């Protein structure tokens, strides 16, 4: 401590040393960067085969990596915001690989790249159309009555709706970071958590309609900017300080780049489906009220009579835990389990500790329901 009680004690020689170390770091980073190829940052590399396609939607079957321990095939359903590749970011941070290694038979649906031409597609089309056809294709391929579904985020809502409408075709459902009570952000009201909920409620239904009228869809870069706002300082520091932290470490640097690759790949959300997502669900909160309609049919959560595993991240700032946990009181099954994992919305899939717990937790739960 200085006698004056000055809060900052940075000596000039120390500052020079820090600057020199930083210079070396940048030089090493620049050298590493110059050697990189696109293949080095490839994501979603686990081998799989396309088994069905309709319009822009395709269904893929992952090649097994171990003996089958869970007989019922599991279909991974991601949402229209972001892409399923997050579940298979890189070899050592991949929910897909973890599940395959634990003997789960896995499929994934890829919604493709919706453009303005897909403006008129609704959630009804995705849930009761494409997703229903994917389930049907898997049932046909295996000659079985039921499949299990693994929904992620918005895909978890698709999974919930589909399972409630067609329970006779669903063996069990696993929901991860899935919003059910879209006003559940007010339960904890944590600073920096649930901004999308708050922001959407600050708009009127007319605002949403005009937005879609103007752009035809919910542009991917628009949703990207909303997500960036949720971590404002991190967004500002990401490409300078955060990058500097990892730039001289091959492994960390490649991890950083792969994550950036996933973030940059943000498809547009078809307009009419976006209207339902923002107005019916985020604004009017119809799902938890059993008032959400798909193809003229009510999505009644009491029809979720199959086993349900509900996974949420304790520090999820996009889908606050209470928005997911609300499902427990609404399902029509006694076999309802919650799995709370450390980390945030994406961290639960790619974070060092959580992603291992996630894969083993799901595989164990599925095996217990065979």
């Amino acid at each position, binding site marked *: *401590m*200085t006698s*004056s*009680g*000055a*809060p*900052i*004690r*940075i*000596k*000039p020689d*120390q*500052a020079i040393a*820090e600057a020199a170390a930083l210079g070396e770091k940048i030089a090493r980073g620049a050298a590493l960067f110059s050697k990189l190829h696109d293949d080095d940052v490839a994501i979603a590399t686990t081998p799989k*085969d*396309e*088994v*069905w*396609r*309709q*319009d822009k939607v395709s269904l893929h079957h992952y090649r097994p990596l171990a003996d089958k321990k869970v007989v019922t095939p599991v279909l991974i359903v991601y949402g229209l915001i972001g892409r399923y590749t997050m579940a298979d970011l890189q070899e050592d941070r991949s929910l897909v690989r973890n599940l395959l290694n634990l003997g789960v038979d896995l499929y994934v649906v890829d919604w493709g790249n919706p453009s*303005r*031409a*897909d*403006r*008129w*597609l609704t959630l009804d*089309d995705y849930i009761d*159309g494409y997703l*229903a*056809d994917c389930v*049907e*294709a898997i049932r*046909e*391929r295996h000659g079985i009555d039921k499949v299990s579904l693994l929904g992620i985020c918005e895909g978890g809502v698709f999974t919930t709706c589909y399972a409630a409408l067609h329970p006779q075709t669903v063996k069990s459902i696993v929901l991860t970071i899935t919003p059910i009570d879209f006003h559940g952000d007010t339960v904890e009201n944590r*600073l*920096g958590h649930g*901004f999308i909920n*708050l*922001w959407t409620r*600050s*708009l009127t239904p007319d*605002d949403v309609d*005009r937005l879609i*009228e*103007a*752009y*035809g869809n919910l542009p991917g*870069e*628009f949703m990207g*900017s909303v997500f*960036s706002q949720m*971590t*404002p*300082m*991190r*967004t*500002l*520091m990401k490409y300078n*300080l955060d990058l500097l932290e990892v730039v001289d470490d091959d492994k960390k640097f490649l991890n950083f780049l792969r994550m950036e690759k996933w973030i940059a790949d943000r498809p547009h959300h078809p307009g009419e489906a976006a209207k339902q997502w923002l107005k019916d669900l985020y604004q009017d909160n119809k799902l938890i009220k059993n008032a959400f309609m798909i193809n003229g049919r009510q999505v009644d959560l009491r029809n979720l009579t199959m086993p349900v595993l509900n996974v949420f991240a304790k520090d999820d700032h996009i889908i606050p835990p209470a928005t997911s946990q609300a499902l427990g009181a609404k399902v029509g099954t006694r076999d309802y389990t919650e799995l709370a994992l450390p980390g945030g919305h994406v961290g639960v899939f790619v974070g060092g500790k959580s992603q291992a717990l996630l894969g083993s937790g799901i595989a164990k739960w599925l095996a217990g329901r065979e």
Partner: protein
Amino acid sequence: MQAMAELWGRGGKDFAAAQQNLFFGMAKAAGQKGASGALPASILDTEGLTQANQAFGKLWSSAIELSQTISRNMQGGETHDPIVAGLLGKIFDPRAWFSGTDGMDQALQRMAEGPRLADLWDTERKMLTLFNAWTALRRCSLEHNTVMLEAWLQAAGKFAKNLNEKADRMEALGSWRELLALWVETANTALLETQRSEAYLKSQRKILMASTDLRLAQQEIATFYSEMFGYPTREELDDVHRTVTELRRELRALQRMSRQAPVKVDTPPETSPKRTRKQSNPRRSASS
């Protein structure tokens, strides 16, 4: 969308620029090292920030005073005409630079929405609507930046307070990294608090709506020229896409029905076995 993203991002850029200025100031101050080689505690204290605020206030007062002086001088020192004084006051009011061009907006609005006489001035009207939307977006952007600036001032104030409290507790930050971490944490909290405020949500909604209006005004111009030169308009393309979507929806429903329908047993197997198989499984499958 790009315009909106740019404008939205501008708030962040301004904030980043403000940060750079802060750290530039710190770095400059670091050059004036004390006897021990450490930064003098007074550089980032609340008093300094208060002084900076006062300087801004003085500048603002000067601007107001200047605008009033100009208004007075423009009248040649004659007895004040309230109408002229009001007009000049508006023209030289510096607030107009911050909050946008209300008067111009209103005039353009009247022109854009005035009575339509056949096709007279129709193109000009569309252009004015577009310009009107553009100025509205600019105004909303400035208003949003003002909210962001307030957030920054709050953050900077808390940051200085934190440093002072550390000094009181005889704690010290030993590296720039620690200093930066404290700033990031403080600024992040201030920004997140601001994001939950009514003012932030309101100004952001206004930007979003203004950018939407601008986009729609641009589309109207595009439609006008598309019709003039015989190209399909956005509306016509949307109609086509809607039809295609509906047809595909019907096709999927028919395919589903045909899958669920029992295969006719009275069809002689030798006549068309391939067709029967296809009908029973019309799904397009990469594996089949």
